[in-house]
Protein backbone atom coordinates (compact mmCIF):
# COMPACT_ATOMS: atom_id res chain seq x y z
CA UNK A 1 0.00 0.00 0.00
CA UNK A 2 1.18 3.50 -0.81
CA UNK A 3 0.00 6.83 0.53
CA UNK A 4 -1.28 9.28 -2.03
CA UNK A 5 -2.81 12.75 -1.77
CA UNK A 6 -6.21 13.22 -3.37
CA UNK A 7 -7.71 16.68 -3.92
CA UNK A 8 -11.25 17.53 -4.97
CA UNK A 9 -12.82 20.64 -6.47
CA UNK A 10 -16.25 22.25 -7.01
CA UNK A 11 -19.23 19.89 -6.66
CA UNK A 12 -16.99 16.84 -6.45
CA UNK A 13 -15.45 18.41 -3.32
CA UNK A 14 -18.86 19.29 -1.90
CA UNK A 15 -20.25 15.77 -2.42
CA UNK A 16 -17.16 14.02 -1.05
CA UNK A 17 -17.14 16.39 1.93
CA UNK A 18 -13.40 17.12 2.08
CA UNK A 19 -11.07 19.27 -0.04
CA UNK A 20 -8.14 16.90 0.26
CA UNK A 21 -7.06 13.72 1.99
CA UNK A 22 -4.30 11.16 2.13
CA UNK A 23 -5.34 7.60 1.37
CA UNK A 24 -3.62 4.23 1.04
CA UNK A 25 -3.85 2.72 -2.43
CA UNK A 26 -2.44 -0.40 -4.08
CA UNK A 27 -0.59 1.98 -6.33
CA UNK A 28 1.27 0.03 -8.95
CA UNK A 29 -1.53 -1.32 -11.10
CA UNK A 30 -4.26 1.26 -10.59
CA UNK A 31 -5.73 3.50 -13.28
CA UNK A 32 -7.47 6.83 -12.64
CA UNK A 33 -10.75 5.06 -13.47
CA UNK A 34 -10.05 2.26 -10.95
CA UNK A 35 -9.12 4.77 -8.26
CA UNK A 36 -12.42 6.61 -8.84
CA UNK A 37 -14.29 3.31 -8.56
CA UNK A 38 -12.44 2.51 -5.32
CA UNK A 39 -13.28 5.93 -3.88
CA UNK A 40 -16.94 5.69 -4.91
CA UNK A 41 -17.34 2.69 -2.60
CA UNK A 42 -16.30 4.64 0.51
CA UNK A 43 -19.69 6.14 1.38
CA UNK A 44 -22.81 7.79 -0.07
CA UNK A 45 -21.10 11.14 -0.64
CA UNK A 46 -18.31 9.57 -2.67
CA UNK A 47 -20.83 7.41 -4.52
CA UNK A 48 -22.78 10.54 -5.47
CA UNK A 49 -19.62 12.39 -6.52
CA UNK A 50 -18.58 9.59 -8.88
CA UNK A 51 -22.06 8.40 -9.95
CA UNK A 52 -21.55 9.67 -13.51
CA UNK A 53 -17.89 8.96 -14.40
CA UNK A 54 -18.21 11.00 -17.61
CA UNK A 55 -18.73 14.15 -15.54
CA UNK A 56 -15.63 13.71 -13.39
CA UNK A 57 -12.27 14.77 -14.78
CA UNK A 58 -8.91 13.96 -13.25
CA UNK A 59 -5.38 15.29 -13.07
CA UNK A 60 -2.20 13.46 -12.11
CA UNK A 61 0.40 15.72 -10.52
CA UNK A 62 -1.45 18.76 -11.85
CA UNK A 63 -1.62 17.59 -15.47
CA UNK A 64 -4.90 16.52 -17.12
CA UNK A 65 -5.25 12.74 -17.15
CA UNK A 66 -7.38 10.18 -18.99
CA UNK A 67 -9.42 7.48 -17.18
CA UNK A 68 -7.00 4.84 -18.47
CA UNK A 69 -3.84 6.60 -17.20
CA UNK A 70 -1.89 4.80 -14.48
CA UNK A 71 -1.40 6.59 -11.19
CA UNK A 72 1.86 4.79 -10.44
CA UNK A 73 4.43 7.15 -8.96
CA UNK A 74 2.00 10.07 -8.66
CA UNK A 75 2.12 12.37 -5.66
CA UNK A 76 -1.24 14.10 -6.12
CA UNK A 77 -4.42 13.04 -7.90
CA UNK A 78 -7.25 15.53 -8.43
CA UNK A 79 -10.89 14.91 -9.28
CA UNK A 80 -13.15 17.71 -10.51
CA UNK A 81 -16.10 18.51 -12.82
CA UNK A 82 -15.64 19.75 -16.40
CA UNK A 83 -14.06 23.19 -16.19
CA UNK A 84 -16.07 26.42 -16.46
CA UNK A 85 -13.48 29.19 -16.24
CA UNK A 86 -12.92 32.06 -18.60
Amino acid at each position, binding site marked *: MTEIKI*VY*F*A*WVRERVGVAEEIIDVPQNDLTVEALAELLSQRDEGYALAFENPKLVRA*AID*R*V*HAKPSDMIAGAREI*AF*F*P*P*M*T*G*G
Partner: protein
Amino acid sequence: MTTRITVRIQADAFDVADETDALNSPNEDVGAVSTFIGYCRSEGGRLNALELEHYPGMAEDEIKRVVDEACTRWPLSSASVIHRYGVMKPGDGIVFVGTASTHRAEAFAACEFLMDYLKTRAPFWKKEYRADGNIGDWVEAKSDDDAAAARWTSKT
Protein backbone atom coordinates in the same frame (compact mmCIF):
# COMPACT_ATOMS: atom_id res chain seq x y z
CA MET B 1 10.53 34.27 -32.00
CA THR B 2 10.86 34.65 -28.26
CA THR B 3 7.50 35.49 -26.80
CA ARG B 4 7.20 37.52 -23.64
CA ILE B 5 4.69 35.50 -21.61
CA THR B 6 2.67 36.74 -18.66
CA VAL B 7 0.42 34.34 -16.77
CA ARG B 8 -1.14 35.41 -13.49
CA ILE B 9 -3.80 33.86 -11.28
CA GLN B 10 -5.04 36.47 -8.83
CA ALA B 11 -7.93 37.54 -6.63
CA ASP B 12 -7.47 41.24 -7.40
CA ALA B 13 -9.04 43.07 -10.33
CA PHE B 14 -6.86 43.76 -13.37
CA ASP B 15 -6.42 47.09 -15.15
CA VAL B 16 -7.25 46.61 -18.83
CA ALA B 17 -5.31 49.69 -19.97
CA ASP B 18 -2.18 48.71 -18.06
CA GLU B 19 -2.29 45.13 -19.29
CA THR B 20 -2.88 46.22 -22.89
CA ASP B 21 0.01 48.71 -22.76
CA ALA B 22 2.29 46.01 -21.37
CA LEU B 23 1.64 43.86 -24.47
CA ASN B 24 2.90 46.65 -26.72
CA SER B 25 6.15 47.36 -24.91
CA PRO B 26 8.78 47.46 -26.29
CA ASN B 27 6.81 48.21 -29.41
CA GLU B 28 9.28 48.46 -32.32
CA ASP B 29 7.95 45.38 -34.12
CA VAL B 30 4.46 45.13 -32.70
CA GLY B 31 1.90 46.02 -35.32
CA ALA B 32 -1.12 44.47 -33.68
CA VAL B 33 -2.47 43.86 -30.19
CA SER B 34 -5.64 41.82 -29.72
CA THR B 35 -7.36 41.54 -26.35
CA PHE B 36 -10.31 39.68 -24.91
CA ILE B 37 -11.96 40.33 -21.55
CA GLY B 38 -14.48 37.94 -20.04
CA TYR B 39 -16.95 39.52 -17.60
CA CYS B 40 -19.30 38.29 -14.90
CA ARG B 41 -22.94 38.58 -16.07
CA SER B 42 -26.13 38.93 -14.04
CA GLU B 43 -28.01 36.63 -16.47
CA GLY B 44 -30.85 39.12 -16.76
CA GLY B 45 -30.87 39.97 -13.05
CA ARG B 46 -30.94 36.32 -11.90
CA LEU B 47 -27.45 36.40 -10.35
CA ASN B 48 -25.86 38.57 -7.66
CA ALA B 49 -22.39 37.11 -8.09
CA LEU B 50 -20.24 34.27 -9.32
CA GLU B 51 -17.61 32.58 -7.19
CA LEU B 52 -14.65 31.16 -9.06
CA GLU B 53 -12.83 28.24 -7.49
CA HIS B 54 -9.49 27.14 -8.93
CA TYR B 55 -6.84 24.48 -8.52
CA PRO B 56 -3.82 26.42 -7.22
CA GLY B 57 -0.63 25.38 -8.94
CA MET B 58 -2.32 23.52 -11.77
CA ALA B 59 -4.26 26.58 -12.96
CA GLU B 60 -1.07 28.52 -13.66
CA ASP B 61 0.77 25.49 -15.10
CA GLU B 62 -2.09 24.58 -17.42
CA ILE B 63 -2.53 28.13 -18.71
CA LYS B 64 1.23 28.28 -19.37
CA ARG B 65 0.94 25.06 -21.38
CA VAL B 66 -1.90 26.58 -23.43
CA VAL B 67 0.13 29.75 -24.04
CA ASP B 68 3.14 27.64 -25.08
CA GLU B 69 0.90 25.83 -27.56
CA ALA B 70 -0.24 29.17 -29.00
CA CYS B 71 3.41 30.22 -29.38
CA THR B 72 4.14 27.14 -31.50
CA ARG B 73 1.29 28.10 -33.85
CA TRP B 74 1.73 31.85 -34.28
CA PRO B 75 4.69 34.26 -34.10
CA LEU B 76 3.75 36.31 -31.03
CA SER B 77 5.93 38.96 -29.45
CA SER B 78 3.82 38.94 -26.27
CA ALA B 79 1.01 36.89 -24.77
CA SER B 80 -0.78 37.57 -21.50
CA VAL B 81 -3.42 35.65 -19.58
CA ILE B 82 -4.73 36.94 -16.27
CA HIS B 83 -7.44 34.87 -14.62
CA ARG B 84 -9.12 35.85 -11.38
CA TYR B 85 -10.60 33.69 -8.63
CA GLY B 86 -12.96 34.52 -5.77
CA VAL B 87 -16.30 36.33 -5.79
CA MET B 88 -17.15 38.42 -8.87
CA LYS B 89 -20.03 40.85 -9.25
CA PRO B 90 -21.82 41.41 -12.57
CA GLY B 91 -19.61 43.71 -14.65
CA ASP B 92 -16.37 42.55 -13.03
CA GLY B 93 -13.67 41.30 -15.38
CA ILE B 94 -12.88 37.61 -14.80
CA VAL B 95 -10.26 36.94 -17.44
CA PHE B 96 -7.94 39.02 -19.60
CA VAL B 97 -6.28 37.52 -22.67
CA GLY B 98 -3.99 39.58 -24.86
CA THR B 99 -1.66 38.85 -27.76
CA ALA B 100 0.78 41.01 -29.68
CA SER B 101 2.25 40.28 -33.09
CA THR B 102 3.53 41.98 -36.21
CA HIS B 103 0.23 41.62 -38.09
CA ARG B 104 -3.38 41.44 -36.96
CA ALA B 105 -4.28 37.98 -38.27
CA GLU B 106 -1.88 36.25 -35.86
CA ALA B 107 -2.94 38.39 -32.90
CA PHE B 108 -6.67 37.77 -33.52
CA ALA B 109 -6.25 34.02 -34.08
CA ALA B 110 -3.97 33.46 -31.09
CA CYS B 111 -6.27 35.45 -28.79
CA GLU B 112 -9.29 33.39 -29.82
CA PHE B 113 -7.33 30.14 -29.55
CA LEU B 114 -6.15 31.01 -26.03
CA MET B 115 -9.67 31.75 -24.90
CA ASP B 116 -11.16 28.61 -26.47
CA TYR B 117 -8.49 26.43 -24.89
CA LEU B 118 -8.69 28.10 -21.48
CA LYS B 119 -12.41 27.41 -21.33
CA THR B 120 -11.92 23.66 -21.58
CA ARG B 121 -8.48 23.18 -19.98
CA ALA B 122 -7.89 25.73 -17.20
CA PRO B 123 -9.02 24.28 -13.84
CA PHE B 124 -11.57 26.89 -12.77
CA TRP B 125 -15.19 26.36 -11.74
CA LYS B 126 -18.01 28.92 -11.37
CA LYS B 127 -20.64 28.80 -8.68
CA GLU B 128 -23.79 30.94 -8.92
CA TYR B 129 -25.01 33.25 -6.15
CA ARG B 130 -28.62 34.02 -6.95
CA ALA B 131 -30.33 37.39 -6.65
CA ASP B 132 -32.96 35.81 -4.35
CA GLY B 133 -30.24 35.30 -1.75
CA ASN B 134 -29.74 31.57 -2.27
CA ILE B 135 -26.55 29.88 -3.28
CA GLY B 136 -27.30 28.35 -6.64
CA ASP B 137 -25.72 25.64 -8.70
CA TRP B 138 -22.30 25.16 -10.18
CA VAL B 139 -22.27 26.40 -13.75
CA GLU B 140 -22.31 23.46 -16.16
CA ALA B 141 -19.73 23.16 -18.89
CA LYS B 142 -21.13 23.84 -22.36
CA SER B 143 -20.65 21.46 -25.26
CA ASP B 144 -20.21 24.62 -27.37
CA ASP B 145 -16.96 25.25 -25.51
CA ASP B 146 -15.64 21.77 -26.37
CA ALA B 147 -16.63 22.34 -29.99
CA ALA B 148 -14.89 25.73 -30.02
CA ALA B 149 -11.68 24.19 -28.69
CA ALA B 150 -11.91 21.18 -31.01
CA ARG B 151 -12.01 23.23 -34.19
CA TRP B 152 -8.36 24.25 -33.60
CA THR B 153 -7.22 20.64 -33.73
CA SER B 154 -8.22 20.31 -37.37
CA LYS B 155 -6.10 23.31 -38.33
CA THR B 156 -2.35 23.54 -38.57
